[in-house]
């Protein structure tokens, strides 16, 4: 058991090691000078090659947070509705549907985003390219919605019936039970879902590349195109020469490490504050 856990937990070290080995030529050549200060990324330019990763890192996190901000309220409300308000048969069907939605390939989401969401945004803000931060967030939000809803639903279901009965015994109404008993008890499980969704969103590649516009810049509005790091890797990896490739691995490594900080922070904080989904 411990061995399995070791393998599962250690896998990520293997991957980081792999990234580091491949990024090493760029680190060694001292090409990271402008990595964190320069906002421009034009590694292929003959005249003025620039390797700034700041704007892309910003884009990765902006798109992800916006997507979670869009999907969390909808997903949670959906889960509460199906658990406490809708007839059980609806819940079953809804779950089937969401499980199906998880299996829709990213490229289908991306394409759908390009053909449906982007024209809508152009109508909303004429003169903008349409492929933008907002388009990326909407598509990503749609993609992680099933994860959030399903894990929240599981967390709500895991609240022991005894607690609900106790609440009813105390004369608490449905809404009050949800608000005062169920949600606090399910906090941990919902947090797990958000964590999974966050991680999924930040690592998503094939959908964002189709709808984000991929201009490496710090966006001034929601309608500006942005380029997340994963997009850059997907766009350039297959065509990069050796030194450019090392830079892309560097960017990937930085994304993983930044995510590590974020995830580590959330997961350690949660371990401190809340030991579980409230079994006892």
């Amino acid at each position, binding site marked *: 058991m411990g061995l399995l856990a070791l393998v599962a937990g250690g896998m990520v070290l293997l991957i980081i090691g792999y990234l580091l080995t491949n990024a090493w030529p760029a680190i060694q050549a001292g090409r990271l000078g402008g990595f964190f200060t320069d906002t421009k990324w*034009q*590694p*292929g*330019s*003959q*005249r*003025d090659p*620039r390797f700034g990763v700041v704007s892309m890192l910003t884009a990765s996190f902006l798109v992800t947070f916006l997507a979670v901000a869009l999907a969390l309220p909808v997903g949670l409300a959906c889960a509460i509705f199906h658990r406490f308000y809708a007839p059980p048969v609806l819940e079953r069907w809804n779950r089937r549907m969401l499980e199906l939605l998880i299996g829709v390939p990213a490229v289908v989401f991306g*394409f759908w985003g*390009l*053909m449906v969401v*982007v*024209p809508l945004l*152009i109508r909303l803000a004429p*003169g903008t*390219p*349409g*492929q933008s931060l907002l388009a990326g967030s909407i598509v990503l939000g749609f993609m992680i919605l099933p994860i959030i809803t399903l894990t929240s639903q599981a967390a709500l279901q895991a609240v022991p019936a005894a607690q609900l009965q106790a609440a009813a015994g105390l004369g608490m109404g449905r809404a009050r039970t949800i608000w005062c008993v169920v949600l606090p008890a399910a906090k941990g499980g919902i947090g797990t879902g958000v964590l999974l969704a966050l991680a999924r969103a930040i690592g998503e590649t094939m959908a964002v*590349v*189709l709808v984000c*516009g*991929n*201009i490496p810049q710090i966006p001034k509005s929601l309608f500006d*195109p942005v*380029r997340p790091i994963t997009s850059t890797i*997907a*766009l*350039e*990896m*297959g*065509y*990069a*020469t*050796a030194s*450019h*490739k090392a830079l892309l691995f560097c960017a990937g490594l930085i994304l993983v490490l930044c995510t590590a900080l974020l995830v580590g922070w959330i997961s350690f904080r949660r371990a401190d504050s809340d030991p579980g989904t409230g079994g006892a």
Partner: protein
Amino acid sequence: MSKLQFLRNLAALVSLTVASCGKKETGAVVVLTGSSTIAPVISDVAKRYEAANPGVRIEVQSGGSSRGIADALSGTADLGMASRALSADEAAKLTAHRIAADGVCVVVHRDNPVSELSREQLISIYTKKATNWKDFGGPDATIVVANKAEGRSTLEVFLHYLGLDNADVKADVVVGENLHVINSVVANPNTIGYVSIGTAASEAKGGTPIKLVSTGGVAATTENVANGTFPITRPLNIVEDALTSPAAKAFLDHLTSPAINDIIQKHFFVPVN
């Protein structure tokens, strides 16, 4: 997941693995990796070649021109597919064989009245000196400039034709694959982009609302690429290093012969052999 079930799974997996290791390949295997533009063509060629040459297996893997070049160098692949010319240090170690040519043309939405743009006009659009379609006889709308991602061969030949460095280009969106460009134009009718003529012509024929724009006074057709009048072209190459196996050599000979021209044309590229 009970222990029993787990063991059963494991046993199944192991037996399948053993079975697969036990089976020895009888004939020669030729591995090709690289350009996603060329891979579909070679897949079709390989199918026919395998049928005509029993015992030979052709494995085609996609992943980008640079991957094809890197794999051919490292020996991971017998042959690499590259939809661009080799750089100087690559050419020192590898030989490129042209199997087809492709043009790169400008595309706009079908409803856009603009149907011809000169080199100078393209330069002013791609450097954002001109930003409205009405300057070119189009509607009063801001031009959305779609550029390709760094490293793509279409980008290299297009910028080479315009005489621009990628740092000079002021794009509104950056896209990757050819069909991503085309669908960006469909999604936003004010977009201008550039793609492989083969892809654009076949999509336009299939009913996608795009238009191939004449460049430098020459219509963007595969015929004009074939007769050499169209100004922006790129080679589709197969690259090999010095250690090519006899089976790979034989397949390479097949690829550089006129025998595959019908398949190349079916994919809307221009045969050169």
